[in-house]
């Protein structure tokens, strides 16, 4: 079974994302900020990461930079999922190594389409 790390400081968003992704046959690990997400990645790299931008302690952008520098850190497909919905943020994220980008609000159709886009399903 494929694994997906869901990183968001909102427990409601994590719960919604978990429900959608479990429906797509992913096993879910949750983290509430970038720091905790890095710890989770050191324990084991997931296949996919659904990543919020604005979070306390370490934001999603900084997490992504750290992840891509880890051994094997180029492997997980990273899909941003954020309210930062402007071109400048999207361009920065892609430049930093994000594979896809979801602008909140999102639903099951969007998550499915984006995960298909990067070849996760």
């Amino acid at each position, binding site marked *: 079974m494929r694994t997906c790390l869901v990183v968001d400081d909102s427990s409601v968003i994590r719960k919604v994302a978990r429900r959608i992704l479990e429906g797509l046959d992913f096993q879910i690990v949750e983290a509430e900020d970038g720091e905790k997400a890095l710890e989770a990645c050191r324990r084991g790299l997931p296949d996919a990461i659904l990543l919020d931008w604005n979070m306390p302690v370490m934001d999603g952008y900084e997490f992504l930079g750290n992840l891509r520098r880890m051994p094997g850190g180029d492997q997980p497909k990273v899909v941003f999922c954020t309210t930062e919905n402007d*071109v400048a943020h*999207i361009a920065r994220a*892609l430049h930093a190594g994000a594979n896809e*980008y979801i*602008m909140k609000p999102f639903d099951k159709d969007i998550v499915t*389409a*984006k995960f*298909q886009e990067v070849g996760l399903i």
Partner: protein
Amino acid sequence: MTPLDYEFLRKLLKERSGLDLSSDKQYLVESRLVPLARKAALQGIPELVQKMKAGGEALITEVVEAMTTNETFFFRDKIPFDHLRETILPALVQARASRQTLRIWCAASSTGQEPYSVAMCVKEFAGLAGWRVEILATDLSQEVLEKSKAGIYSQFEVQRGLPIQMLVKYFTQIGELWQLNPDIRAMVQHRQLNLLQDFSHLGKFDVIFCRNVLIYFDQGTKTAIFERLARMIEPDGVLTLGAAESVVGISEAFKPYLDRRGLYRPNAEGSVRADAKGLLTRALRAVAAG
């Protein structure tokens, strides 16, 4: 809505748009037409039907448009567009090398996601640089064509099927909305067209996308449209249907490509007629002589 009202609407929709409603689709008619009646300050469907019977042409057009399904999204089903990039365009670039023109038709193009997906594929296909590529988008509904021309989509619409790199590359953000850039919009011509009516004036096409529209028609209408489409397509052209559609058992005018799901070519007999000096004719003669 009385059974007579429903029968009236069924018959009218069949004649005007080909929509083939089974006898149990009252809920669909109600969900689409009750809001329309309300907007026109009418009591409900019975009064709407009355006005239509009294000859309300504008109202009839609105009803026909309200009953069409315009569900679409960018790069819908993905596979047809992979075929376009990997098979169809490379083959046509070779076959049309001398005249350097291509004509592509999106029949029932709805709000434009399909023709613009084709346009982006064409734009990114290096072998077509400098070619004259015509992309024609037609639909029954003037309303969806207007939306298509504007090329403005909601955040929700641009996130279904469109890779994020393409959003950044080909769209401009306007507040919460996203508009296709003028160069992509200029690649698509729009025209109102009812597939039930004659479309032979459009000329011949190399590729026809006719996806997820014939499913609403009855068998006889489907067969007739396939026959007419076959006369509009070059002998080596390609017809693309929706993921759940097929010509099998409906028409002999097209044949499926065995290894390319959803792609069809005009049947050999059709191409003999269309291309009397073509290879196929010669091959047949050789067989006859041999």
